[in-house]
């Protein structure tokens, strides 16, 4: 569900805006960065926090 929430939030943002997503260890931490990257956004991990720049 973390990626679903993240995706909806990104849809509401403008290109270039930044979003920080705290990912729970496990599935979210494994999948959300990959999904964000596959969607074309710039991503960087900072511990359990995913920092996304909307494409």
């Amino acid at each position: 569900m973390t990626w679903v929430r993240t995706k909806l939030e990104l849809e509401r943002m403008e290109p270039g805006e930044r979003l920080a997503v705290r990912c729970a260890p496990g599935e979210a931490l494994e999948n959300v960065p990959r999904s964000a990257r596959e969607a074309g956004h710039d991503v960087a991990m900072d511990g359990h926090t995913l920092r996304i720049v909307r494409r």
Partner: protein
Amino acid sequence: MSTSRRELFAALRGGARAEEPDAAALERYSRQLVLPEWSERAQRALGAASVLVVGAGALGSPVAAYLAGAGVGRLGIVDGDAVELSNLHRQFLHFTPDVGAPKAESAAAKLRFLNPDVHVEVYPATLEEGNAAALVEGQDLVVDCTDSFAARYAVNAACCAAGVTLVEGGVVGWSGLVMGIRPGQSACYRCAFPQPPQDAPSCAEAGVLGPAAGVVGSLQALEAIKLVAGVGEPLLGAFLQIDLASHAVVRVAVSRRADCRDCGGA
């Protein structure tokens, strides 16, 4: 949570009960929300839509189930028949204890279990020329799941007159047809088939396999979702002819006819 976010989730639920957690709508629709082609806007469009499913049988079962599951806000079910034992191999919204019950009611009961957030309206009537306009009025989209050519042409004429988008479908034996219609923009059913066939057999005569109806109904549901949500490439200006015995699918382009008595002036 911001007001706009609350409005979003209320819209996703199609005007659901306030006591439900917002997370429920998010979870219910999560597998389509996560699609790259899908969006909050697409989900909102479904939740705001009124769709009429004409026929709650072999095609209507998958159509209504998928539309309810996807979160169409208002779903009308038109059927004047009662459930028969011979229906059950292909009409999966009806169960053995439903035999004898009105089909529209039987289908609506299952759809309300499937998604309580969808407002299901029951029309226990057979669509015909005399009532087609009233049934179609105010709908955003109609899905024709009837099994008679008289009803099919009546739905087409009513949708053309009202400017309501229509998804046509039919199945018999191992074969089926699906066609999307935007009156005034794309060819209508009568443009493709100006006259009903003289000797087309019914499912009772020719037989039909349940999964064949399931495939055709699923394609109709898919087209309905695409047309309402504005995602993907809808099947307009063409129909699919499907032979499920050989897995042959042919896309046949159809042009509007200026002299079409249903949509010629639309």
